[in-house]
C-alpha cells in the first residue's frame, strides 16, 4: 500500500465536495474491495474519504410501493431484512450466494456495485492490463481466461463484473440514485455498468465526482417464482463462473412476465429483452426455456479456456427458469441443484 491521507465526510455534500476536489481520492465504505486492491497497489488513491458515518444505511418504502435502500446498507443486513426476504427474495438469495458472512457484514450496497473485476491480470501489476493501465494491452485475451467473459467483450478487455447482488438488481429493474455537484440523478440499473469497448478502465457511468446514495427497487419483486443459481469452482465462497437470476409471473399456465439476468459472463449484468419477450405468453416449459437461452447466448464467443461457459450458461439458464417456474428456488445452503 502506498501512503495516503484520511478524511471523514461529515455529510453527503461534504463527501461530494471532497471527491470532486481531488481526482486521486477514493471513497471508502466497507473497504472489502478497495483495501484489497490498495494492498496489491492496483488502485493507489492518495486520499481516502470515509463515508461510513453518512446516514445512508436505511431501507424505506417508497410512495410507489417499492423500496429505497441506502448505499451504506451492509449486504448481510439487506439479505436478511424482512421486507427484502418477503418481497424481493431474489435479492436475498443472490447476496447470500456471494462472499462470506464476514465480508457481507462489511460490504455496502453501493460498494458492491462499484467492485472491480477479479480478472487475474488486473490484480497482477507485473502484467499488461488495459483496465489497470490503459493502452498497455490485455493479457487475458491470449492468456489464462477461464474466468473471463463470453458476451459483450472487446479487443481491449474480456473481464467480467463479479457481483451477485447486481445480477438480481438488474433482473428486477432497480435504479441507482446518485448525487454530484449538479444534484441528484437516477440511472437505470442496466445502464449503470458499461461494456468495455475501448475504454475498459471505466467500469460504470457514475461520474468521478458523484456518489451513490441509494438503490431503488420497483414494486414488483416476483416473490413467488424466482431463483438465483450460481455455478462456481467450489461450492461456496467463490466467484461465479456463470450465474443466473430468473424471475417470473405465471398466470393461468402461461408466462405473463419474466426477467433473466446473467452473471460471470460479461462486463455487466447481462440481460436481453428479446429473450424475455420470446417467453411471454408461452407455457413455462423446457422447450421455451431452451429457446430463450439460445437468444441470450446468441452472440457468445469463447476464448482459449472459457468456451465451456457457453454450454454451462445454456444449461444454467434452463435450470434456473425451471426452478423459478416450479416455485422451487435454489437454496444457497443446500448445494443440490434440483
Amino acid at each position: 500500500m502506498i501512503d495516503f491521507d484520511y478524511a471523514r465526510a461529515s455529510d453527503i455534500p461534504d463527501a461530494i465536495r471532497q471527491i470532486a476536489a481531488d481526482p486521486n481520492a477514493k471513497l471508502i465504505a466497507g473497504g472489502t474491495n478497495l483495501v484489497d486492491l490498495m494492498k496489491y497497489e492496483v488502485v493507489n488513491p492518495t486520499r481516502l474519504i470515509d463515508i461510513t458515518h453518512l446516514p445512508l444505511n436505511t431501507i424505506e418504502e417508497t410512495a410507489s410501493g417499492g423500496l429505497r435502500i441506502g448505499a451504506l446498507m451492509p449486504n448481510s443486513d439487506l439479505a436478511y431484512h424482512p421486507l427484502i426476504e418477503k418481497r424481493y427474495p431474489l435479492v436475498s438469495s443472490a447476496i447470500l450466494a456471494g462472499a462470506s458472512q464476514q465480508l457481507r457484514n462489511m460490504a455496502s450496497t453501493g460498494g458492491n456495485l462499484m467492485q472491480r473485476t477479479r480478472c487475474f491480470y488486473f490484480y497482477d501489476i507485473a502484467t499488461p492490463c488495459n483496465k489497470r493501465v490503459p493502452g498497455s494491452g490485455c493479457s487475458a485475451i491470449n492468456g489464462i481466461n477461464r474466468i473471463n467473459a463470453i458476451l459483450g467483450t472487446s479487443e481491449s478487455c474480456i473481464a467480467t463484473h463479479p457481483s451477485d447482488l447486481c445480477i438480481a438488481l438488474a433482473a428486477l429493474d432497480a435504479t441507482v440514485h446518485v448525487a454530484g455537484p449538479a444534484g441528484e440523478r437516477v440511472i437505470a440499473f442496466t445502464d449503470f455498468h458499461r461494456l468495455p469497448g475501448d475504454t475498459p478502465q471505466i467500469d460504470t457511468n457514475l461520474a468521478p465526482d458523484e456518489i451513490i446514495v441509494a438503490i431503488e427497487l420497483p414494486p414488483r419483486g416476483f416473490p413467488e417464482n424466482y431463483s438465483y443459481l450460481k455455478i462456481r469452482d467450489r461450492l461456496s465462497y467463490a466467484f461465479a463462473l456463470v450465474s443466473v437470476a430468473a424471475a417470473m409471473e405465471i398466470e393461468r399456465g402461461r408466462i405473463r412476465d419474466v426477467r433473466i439476468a446473467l452473471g460471470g459472463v460479461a462486463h455487466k449484468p447481462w440481460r436481453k429483452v428479446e429473450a424475455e419477450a420470446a417467453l411471454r405468453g408461452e407455457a413455462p416449459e423446457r422447450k421455451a426455456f431452451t429457446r430463450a437461452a439460445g437468444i441470450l447466448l446468441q452472440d457468445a464467443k469463447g476464448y482459449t479456456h472459457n468456451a465451456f461457459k457457453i454450454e454451462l450458461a445454456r444449461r444454467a439458464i434452463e435450470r434456473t427458469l425451471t426452478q423459478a417456474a416450479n416455485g422451487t428456488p435454489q437454496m444457497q445452503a443446500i448445494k443440490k441443484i434440483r
Partner: protein
Amino acid sequence: MSPSSFPGGLERKSTSRPAEIPVRITVNGQEHRLAIAPWTTLLDVLRDHLDLTGTKKGCDHGQCGACTVLVDGRRIVSCLTLAVIKDGAEVTTVEGLATNGVLHPVQQAFIDHDAFQCGYCTPGQICSSVALIAEGKATTADEIRELMSGNICRCGAYTNIVAAIQQAMASMDGKP
C-alpha cells in the same frame, strides 16, 4: 478535540507523510487510545500495537477468515478493515471470549470435538462460530457449513468444526 469526533478534511499536504490519526478502540473490554497511520489494518493494530497475537494473519486479503474478530458484535475480517474507520468500536478477539478463566462454550466444544489440527485457523473459526450462533440463521449442518464458508481450514478439520458448533449451539440454546 476528542478522537472519536475527528472531523472531515484532515488538512495537510499530501507530499509529506500523513499524520498519525488518533483512534479509540475498546478491545475485550479495555479501552485503548492510539495514534496510528491511516493504512494500519485492525489486524495489525491487534497483533503489532496491542500484542494480541491470538488473531491470525493468513492471506491478508479477506480470503481465509483467520483474522476474523467481532466488531460491535458482528464478525468481520480484520485484515481488510482500516483501524481509523473503526474509531470508537468495541472489538472482541479470541482472547476476550473466556470469562473468569472459564472457556466460552464454543472454545470448550472445539476442544471436546478436536476441531483443529495445527490450530492456525482456530481463533478465526471460534470467533466466527460465536457470531454464527448469535446471528441465529443456521440450524442444520448444511446451513452451518454454508455460513462458516468464510473460514478456511487447511488441515481439513471441517467435520469436527461442524460437530463442535452443533454442541455449542445446543448447550447455549441460542444464547450468545
